[in-house]
């Protein structure tokens, strides 16, 4: 029977603490589906068990200050187990969401629907599974209890959007499946909204595999096939095992020795040219011989940065790694200002938020398990990284949010020492030019250029702003390029009378240093196009509404 491997992985960040002392734990237990408080739940930490009250609250005092296992039990729900770090003389607030086991006949899908992969939440989309339907909430989330053993397609539709389908979807009793379902805008209103059909050969569902194996993916679709993205051991946009464009077939090899032994899965995401998509999960078991005799070393160093771009489309942009990748003809054409070719695969242009975490290679590691947390307690597995960096474009990233990443090297012998680093995202902002206005006449020969910043939140203290102002004359030659920290700049000198000029904030950024994590966060105004650092020659960072051109005053003669 095809079964979906459970994808919910909760791992706590544990750093062994020495020392002694006591702390306490308190929190609320809720139903993970409906969010309602649950009474009479048995919550156990160490040898102490308490029950929740009518409001779902519990409290346990005098708990040893160390990493503690916490469990929660209630009839009709799966047993909840997690780890909680208790600190001396502190009260830890630890809320628990119980997953219904119902009659052991139901499993749950808890997914969020986003506009394109890694894009903004898509609210109001209709989710259909057999005869069941649900509608995504304002955060793009929906929940659905699904009978075990039933196999059907899960489809997501919305007016103006193409259709995304999760093909041959099933659940495991008492377990929750959690993942992201991307939905693209329908490229052309005249096109079909029928999603593709995907088949995989070379890997049977549930098969135990070792060494290398080769997979072939085929898709059939109404519109022409656009892309087949294939992922192994990855819930995110990256890393991915393969991408093939403009073909109905993708063939690639997977070296399973680079992954951890145990349950794994292949995830296929296939798009046609209308934007319709099909997701297919194929679970399998990796079973390689242990050929290492020692654990991998800890990583020698770690770097972390956060970037925020204020784009036109809102907080999260839409996936557009269309064409820009893997088109040698296209790639050839893009040059950096120094004339060097640009690697279009380096950074997608489509993202408003992304965090970069990179690390030095661990000696002896086959790969790295990467986890993300928003509270430094509950860590969610992102995927197995076979390289030493990760660009996190998750739709879960929001402005002003602290994010922790845990990187854990592994090899066939086991897991090495993990490293945890955190960073805080900055709000996004846009620069709007103010004066001199576009097409203004009689502008002073020593104009004060002014602009304003529209931010989506308050910048933390210590954030530094830099704006690069440029002024070009009528023949398009640059007469000024200067750096400003405030939202104005007085022209140093005199412009010519009766001349035509254009001006702009060519680039703008905010920067904040986090000494604790030795990390940097940046935010950039983004007039469409690419980034502050001028990664690609095309596209304009800086103001949203520039350039403004104007003519200068003529003295009375």
């Amino acid at each position, binding site marked *: 029977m095809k079964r979906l491997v459970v994808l919910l992985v909760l791992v706590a960040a544990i750093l062994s603490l020495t020392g002694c002392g006591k702390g306490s734990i308190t929190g609320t237990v809720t139903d993970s589906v409906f969010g309602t408080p649950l009474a009479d739940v048995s919550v156990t930490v160490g040898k102490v068990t308490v029950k929740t009250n009518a409001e779902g609250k519990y409290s346990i005092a005098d708990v040893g200050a160390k990493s503690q296992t916490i469990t929660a039990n209630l009839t009709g729900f799966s047993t909840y187990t997690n780890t909680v770090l208790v600190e001396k003389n502190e009260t830890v607030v630890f809320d628990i969401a119980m997953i219904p086991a119902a009659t052991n006949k139901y499993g749950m899908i808890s997914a969020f629907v986003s506009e394109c992969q890694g894009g903004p939440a898509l609210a109001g989309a209709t989710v259909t599974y057999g005869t069941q339907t649900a509608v995504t909430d304002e955060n793009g989330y929906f929940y659905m209890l699904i009978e075990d053993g039933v196999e059907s397609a899960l489809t997501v539709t919305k007016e103006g959007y193409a259709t995304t389908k999760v093909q041959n979807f099933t659940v495991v009793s008492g377990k929750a499946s959690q993942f992201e379902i991307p939905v693209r805008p329908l*490229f*052309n*209103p005249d096109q079909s909204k029928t999603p593709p059909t995907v088949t995989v050969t070379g890997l049977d569902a549930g098969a135990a595999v070792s060494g290398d194996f080769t997979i072939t993916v085929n898709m059939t679709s109404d519109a*022409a096939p656009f892309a087949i993205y294939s992922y192994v051991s990855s819930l995110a946009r990256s890393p991915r095992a393969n991408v093939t464009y*403009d073909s109905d077939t993708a063939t690639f090899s997977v070296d399973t020795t680079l992954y951890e032994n145990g349950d794994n899965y292949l995830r296929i995401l296939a798009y046609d*040219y209308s934007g319709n998509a099909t997701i297919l999960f194929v679970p399998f078991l990796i079973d390689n011989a242990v050929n290492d005799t020692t654990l991998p070393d800890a990583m020698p*160093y770690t*770097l972390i940065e956060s970037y925020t771009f204020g784009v*036109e*489309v809102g907080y999260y942009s839409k996936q557009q790694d*269309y*064409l820009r990748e893997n088109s040698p*003809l*296209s790639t*050839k*054409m893009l040059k950096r*200002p*120094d*004339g060097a070719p640009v690697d*279009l695969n380096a*950074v997608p*242009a*489509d993202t408003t938020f992304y965090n*970069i975490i*990179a690390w030095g290679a661990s000696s002896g590691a086959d790969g790295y398990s990467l986890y993300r947390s928003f509270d430094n307690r509950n860590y969610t597995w992102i995927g197995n990284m076979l390289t030493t960096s990760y660009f996190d474009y998750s739709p879960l990233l929001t402005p002003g949010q602290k994010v922790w990443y845990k990187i854990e090297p592994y090899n066939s012998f086991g897991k090495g020492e993990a490293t945890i680093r955190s960073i805080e995202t900055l709000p996004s902002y846009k620069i709007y030019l103010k004066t001199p206005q*576009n*097409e203004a*006449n009689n502008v002073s020969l020593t104009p004060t250029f002014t602009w304003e910043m529209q931010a989506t939140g308050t910048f933390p203290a210590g954030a530094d702003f830099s704006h690069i102002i440029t002024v*070009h004359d*009528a*023949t398009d*030659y640059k*007469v*000024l390029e*200067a*750096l400003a920290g405030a939202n104005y700049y007085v022209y*140093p*000198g005199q412009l*010519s*009378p*009766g*001349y*035509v000029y254009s001006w702009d904030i060519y680039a703008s950024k905010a920067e904040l240093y986090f000494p604790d994590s030795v990390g*940097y966060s940046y935010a950039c105004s983004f*007039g*469409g196009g690419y980034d502050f*650092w001028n*990664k690609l*020659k*095309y596209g*304009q960072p800086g*103001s*949203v*509404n*520039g*350039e*403004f*051109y104007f*003519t200068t005053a*003529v003295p009375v003669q």
Partner: protein
Amino acid sequence: MKRYSILLTILLGITLLSGCFSPLSLSEIKDQLNPTPMNTHSTTDPTPIKYDDVPHNINRVLVRIDHTYREHLDAFLAKSDSHILNEWSEIGWFMVSVPTNETPLSYISKLRKVIGVSWAEPEMEYEIPTPVSKNSVMLSGGSSAKPGQKYEVAVVPDRPQYGMQWGHQNINSEAAWEITTGDPSVIVAIVDTGVDKGHPEFVGKTFVGDYNAIDGSTDVTDNNGHGTHVAGIAADDGLTGEIAGVAWQCPIMPVRVMNNAGEIYNSYLIEAMLYLADYANANPGVRIVANMSIGGRGYSYAFKDAIDAAAEKGVLLVTSAGNDYKRIIGYPSCFNGVVDVAASDPYDRRTDFSTIGPWTSLAAPGTMIYSTVPGGAYESWDGTSMASPFACGAAALVLSAHPGLTPLQIKNQLEQTAQGAPSFNEELGYGVMDIAAAVGALEPMIYGSLDVTTNIISTDATGWLGVGVISIYDSNGLLAGFGTTGENANYLFHALKPGTYRVQVVYYDVFDDLYRIQSKSATVARETTTAVDFDFAIPVSVTTTPLEHYTIDQTAAEYTYHYQVDFTVATEGCYDFITSSSGTALDTAITLYDAVGNELAYNDDHEGGHNFSRIIKKLPVGTYTVVVETWDPDEQPILTCNLDINSFTVTY
């Protein structure tokens, strides 16, 4: 300029960081993210020409000379060890080599002093603004175009991949093909990277007049792919192969302007436009519409001349708006009179990358455009480069249906039949075009022309005098257009709406340190050219008198990067302070101070690593201090150069 180069280096450092995450320490990153403030000097350069940020060829420059003075140019070139690389006698321009030990800018400065030379400029590099390679993420706000007219009957090409070509539905191609699929006498010139004529899609397609504007040969091999993609959109026939272009029966003329290094210089574009003019002149039975999906920031007087020369021979230039996402001035899209095409999406909205501006003509499909690429393949590309050939193909159909239209009339017809007309906006111009309407009844002409002429023209007695900056204001006082006088001392505005304009010309007289400003009224009427002439008091002779020469070598000095010397002005007048190389090329900066230490002028012009700075300043009687330093004492700690001080005697 050096400072700009440094900034770029900083930016590129970050590119590498984000691209592959090379193991820079974060403190290194932090250092790189804090560039030195730029342009902190409080005085501006009086020289109105700067080429700092314009990519240009360091080996060649363009120069224009009156033919009667040709021997002066030849003599100067021979003396300075330069030679002529190309000559466009129609417009009086030459391309010459830059001698060793000269930079393009230092040599331009010298060329401008040669008798008979009216202009010299760098050979600028342009680019093909494509593909953006993004899908159609739109600005919010939706469409500004009106719903298009719909036609009942249509030719639907029976091509296997026609379904991939969404664009034809939005621009009413099928209804247009009912009226015409193009006349063989109308040639679609693809001024681009070449065309893969052997692509199976082009079986049965006629190619004429292949031209390689780099070497003058007929080799139009497309090493890039851009030109082949553009050609398929504009003029593939819908009778064979996988797809359908716009102008089926119109021959394609491939004109290659990208060299083997992947560069496009404006000399190639000039050569291409003049080739088209010559071809049209030699073949009176044909008409040419040219597509140039190419652009750049650098304003070139020679390029403007070449476009105007081609227009005189009936050649229409259709160009891409650019993929700059916002209002960015660029050329040739901002030259008055060309058809400037924005990119639209299947919902007839502007694609987010499409450059906006009041110079936009109309919009055409420009995202996920499926067309030919070399090697028999097809790809979907994004960009205004893909929109422009739709409009160029449409222009060919208009000319097929209405032979005899002038370039301006074709432009007018395309614009006034677009789906947004008569309303206009900066994003889509007159809206997404409607080819069926364009090949239908002729719309009234809305444009007239205005030729602004002046006497700001250099002579053998004056050398280079500079330019007049022209701005024209409509009856509401709004800026309606601008230009500069250039080497012919005029600017032709091909396309202005009828009405009365205030025309203002400002001319900076560097010798008198004075702006001379004149303003006149001119009335533009439909389908006519109005002339307005300006007469300035300009120098009739300029004599240069060498006053001082210093050979500077600070190797043994206390401050090795610094040199200063006092200079006494006994007679009020115009003085010239200029550095030049004395052996090793050096990037210098000159600052001029008055007797009490006020900074009067500063110049560090010219390319990083080069050796030429200059101040021209009108000075009253008094004592001054000239300071010469290496531009970057860290990089070039020892100053060795020449300093010359000259005076100008000017007669008006």
